[in-house]
């Protein structure tokens, strides 16, 4: 795309600002660990961890959309990249985490006492 291309520097610095703020919030929360968020669970994970994961996905969105400039690609290319990733990663996490939790339950309530 050699033809005239206006500069995007303003947006780049704006995104950098967002990423920095999110990281700072994450670190602050990680150090303070507010009691209400840390001790209360949602779907067997603490609210704090949910916040961390959501903030991470927001960061990933900005990196991929702004820095990797997926927002400027055609719709077809965007979907062929994002859709397989979203589907496969969710699937992988679902299978492995459920299985991990199951093994934990077996150890805890079953008669097995040692590693396999």
């Amino acid at each position: 795309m050699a033809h005239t291309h206006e500069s995007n520097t303003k947006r780049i610095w704006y995104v950098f600002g967002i990423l920095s703020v999110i990281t700072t919030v994450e670190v602050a929360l990680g150090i303070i660990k507010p009691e209400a968020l840390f001790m209360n669970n949602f779907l067997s994970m603490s609210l704090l961890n949910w916040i961390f994961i959501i903030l991470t996905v927001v960061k990933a969105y900005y990196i991929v959309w702004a820095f990797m400039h997926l927002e400027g690609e055609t719709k077809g290319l965007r979907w062929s990249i994002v859709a397989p990733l979203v589907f496969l990663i969710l699937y992988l996490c679902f299978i492995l985490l459920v299985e991990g939790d199951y093994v934990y339950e077996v150890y805890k309530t079953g008669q097995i006492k040692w590693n396999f």
Partner: protein
Amino acid sequence: MGATVNSNDEHALLDGGPGPLGATYGKMMMWFFIVSDALTFSGFLAAYGFSRFKYIENWPLADEVFTHFPFLHGVSAPMYYVALMTFILIFSSVTMVLAVDAGHQLKKSKVAFYMFLTIIGGGIFLGSQAWEWKNFIKGEYGAVETVGGSILQFVDKDGKRVALHEFAKVLPGEREQLTRDKGFWFTEESSLPTYTVAEVIEGFKAHPDVLIRTEQIVKKEKVTLTREESLKRIEGTKYVVEGASLIRNEYGHKLFADFFFFITGFHGFHVFTGVLLNVIVFFNVILGTYEKRRSYEMVEKVGLYWHFVDLVWVFVFTFFYLV
């Protein structure tokens, strides 16, 4: 580029030629390489999640493990250092995207300048990671491993960690390391810890205010035993553990160090590769290769890879240090 390029234009062909979906083949290849690499990292992190869920009740607490900061000796600074590393990598991502932006406007010297900054950022990140590994491998407090394979750490009455050298008793007698030239050619052992098991046990008995902290987590905190329970538990000690290796580590579950070395190591390898690619492209920019082509798409492609490395770090940061 798309429609403006005719297929006889060899410069355009160097970028892979115009392909479907409005992108060149070169760029698409980079994108789909990134998709597959992202799945590889997802596999690693999901495997980490599996092990963690499996041992949810005795996994090490990350903010007790990574507490070092350069020039702050003895100060517990959880997370600050990794946060700094995250900022370094995000910032080098910014300079990379500024280089790509300057490339769109065909400003050669600006591209070179931002590429240079990106390379420096990558170098600093790699150095930081080396320092992080050094601290992790060296360890701080030391621990013992029982016959059953669990790690016991030492704390005082207030729950503050106590290092082995603060209480271990030095006993007479020397224990020599078994090396290949001293026994059978196939038998050897890794370097010996500073204290023997007997020295730690004797020292522990002589210090009534030292207690044992187990790996078990109850209400998000590791369980500390009473003095009587501690004395009983110390008898089952088999190894003295200092720092971390792939076999055992003083922080807790063995898999923790394995995953740490493997995932951050694989990511560090990607950063190293990224720096290498950036250096090559940097020299091409200086030599005017892309100026002649009238297209800085190569900068854009290594840029994609570099941002991907940053993206992976964002996830490693969350799942290793925060969650």
